């Protein structure tokens, strides 16, 4: 067994002298705390603390919280049921059943899309694997429920979250993800993409 020798501080006979440095720092810290405490008590300064859960707290868009499925302009899920998220998922918590869409232009769509949130490790691989930007991890962090059934999020729940917090909507503009490439798809391209079931 390897032993790492850590050098100890030199012993000083004068304990008070040795502790002097610590005491000074503690006192200056306390001074700051007390100043702010009284200032806030006298309402001279705004408090940063949120009274959660009475008051909502929001996270940034990058936060990997509860999943949601993005929608096309026409309100249908973008997901093409390619199973890549289910394939990438290390927790195997995504369950998809694919079906034939009534419109041949979309062709394949998820009849069922379920996430077993208790198994999910919020790694975000599904988001990365998705070729059509159909699944995202949103800003919702409070995942609370009582019944066992509700822990499996259905397609309807994942796709329809009007009250999604953090100002995020589940309907995304068709070309949002691709704007950074600096190539605005032409109407013709968009048509052909839609024709292929891509968006």
């Amino acid at each position, binding site marked *: 067994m390897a032993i790492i020798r850590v050098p100890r501080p030199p012993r000083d006979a004068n304990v008070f002298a040795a502790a002097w440095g610590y005491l000074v720092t503690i006192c200056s810290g306390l001074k700051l705390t007390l100043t702010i405490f009284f200032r806030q008590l006298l309402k001279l300064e705004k408090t940063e603390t949120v009274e959660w859960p009475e008051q909502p707290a929001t996270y940034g868009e990058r936060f990997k919280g509860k999943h949601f499925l993005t929608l096309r302009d026409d309100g249908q899920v973008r997901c*093409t*049921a*390619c*199973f*890549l998220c289910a*394939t990438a998922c290390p927790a195997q918590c995504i369950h998809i059943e*694919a*079906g*034939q869409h009534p419109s*041949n232009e979309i*062709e*394949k769509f998820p009849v069922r899309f379920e996430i077993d949130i208790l198994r999910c490790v919020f790694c975000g691989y599904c988001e990365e694997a998705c*070729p*059509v930007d159909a699944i995202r991890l949103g800003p919702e962090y409070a995942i609370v429920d009582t019944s066992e059934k509700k822990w499996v999020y259905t397609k309807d729940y994942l796709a329809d979250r009007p009250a999604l917090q953090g100002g995020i909507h589940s309907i995304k503009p068709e070309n949002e993800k691709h704007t950074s490439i600096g190539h605005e798809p032409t109407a*013709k*391209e968009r048509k*052909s993409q839609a*024709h*292929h*079931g*891509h968006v």
Partner: protein
Amino acid sequence: MADTVTFTLNDKNVTVPKGWTVMQAAKQAQVDIPHFCWHPGLSVAGVCRFCMVHVQGARKLEIACNLQATEGMIVRTDTPEVKEAHKWGLEFHLINHPLDCPVCDQAGECGLQDFYMQVGKYKSQMTRPKVLKPKAVDLGPRLILDTERCILCSRCVRFEEEVTKTGALGIFDRGDRAIIGTYGEEKIEHNYQENLVDVCPVGAFTSKKFRFKQRVWFLQEKSSICPGCSTGCKIKVHARTDRRTYYRVKPEIDETVNGFWMCDKGRDTIAHLNREHRLPQSQMRIDGKKQTVPTAQALESLRRAIETAGAEETALLVSAHYTVEEYEAFFHYFCDQLGVTKVYQWRAETEDRDSFDGILLRGDENPNTAGLRAAMRRVKGRTVPIKNEIATCVSKKPKVVVALCPEVPFTSPWFQEDLKQLAGISHVSLWTCRYEATEVAGITSWIPMKGFAEKTGHFLNYEGAKRELQEAFPSATAEALSVVEAVQQMAAIATITTETATL
């Protein structure tokens, strides 16, 4: 030797029969030459221009599929020139391909994907709009055609002309407007449709039955034998073991019997293996009510019934859906050990046993008629004519009947009607894989059996050739037994009971 040639393929000496092409030789020598249009079971088209190889002394690259191997020829598949040809060959294939892999069922077993990883150019220079063509065309009861994904390798057209000789497919128009299809709205309706899906190297032809059901990378495959008829095609069963669900059947190459093909009927032989169609556990009718019981209890009650009635009052009703090994164990226990002599075949009353569609499908819809016949000859000491003997069985008024039920539902639609004939017998034990149609008055016990894909062993096909079920999936229902296991269990219970009795 005059009838072989030896040539050099990537520094390796390869000896093949005279007249073989470099492609065939490379397959044998396990040298990978990427190709699309070449298929070992079809004629050479030489149109994908992808199997380029370098032949020393030749002015330009040659295609391996139409290049006959000659003595002393020096062929390389790995020169920079060949690699460049592969890169661009694939680029040409891909420029008008829709790249809709996410929604394409072929993804995961697609030639374009595989070769892209192997020899791809990675950086495409195609920036122009693609040629658009009809998608998701309904081409038959089992077929969907996506003409945009098609790379016009013409394998399907050649299959239609050479194998089924129906010639229903053609390539219409020319240049990059060319489209594969049938005439007008015509559908392909023969019994070999799904072979078109198999020969298609890309996702142009997809199977309606398998459409969107599962991504292929989740599937495991095991080698087995089709139980649909007495031809005994070698097949691969694809299933997800984690879900215990069977998804599809594909033919496996077997030059001696089925070549590269199998019929569509054979592909339906797995539907009954899935849990929803299976007898989940042993059941018994106790006091007129059907109850789930431990298998041991059902078997024990059967043993008791035989003991009470006596071996001479017991009859065995056997269908030809089980393996040679199973018959051996079954007859060994019941006939040799218990002394049962009444053994009857159980098969369709009317069948056109010798009919043959000229390709693969035979009129005898039992996979192991020959095996059962041989086993019965051993038991009975004489050759029995092949016919349905359930009526004879019933007329002998046995008290106990052990019935090895036919496994594949669509080849035994007569099953339930036949079962009704057994109504008057005091103990009928059904050994069955299926659940449907077994709900008939007069049945005493139901023992769950394994399906063909869940056991190893062998069938004897129409010409007596040994057809081996090589690998087995775990059973979709945990309780299912093979006949061998059931018989062993029964014998073991018997021993314990006897021992207990003697104590």
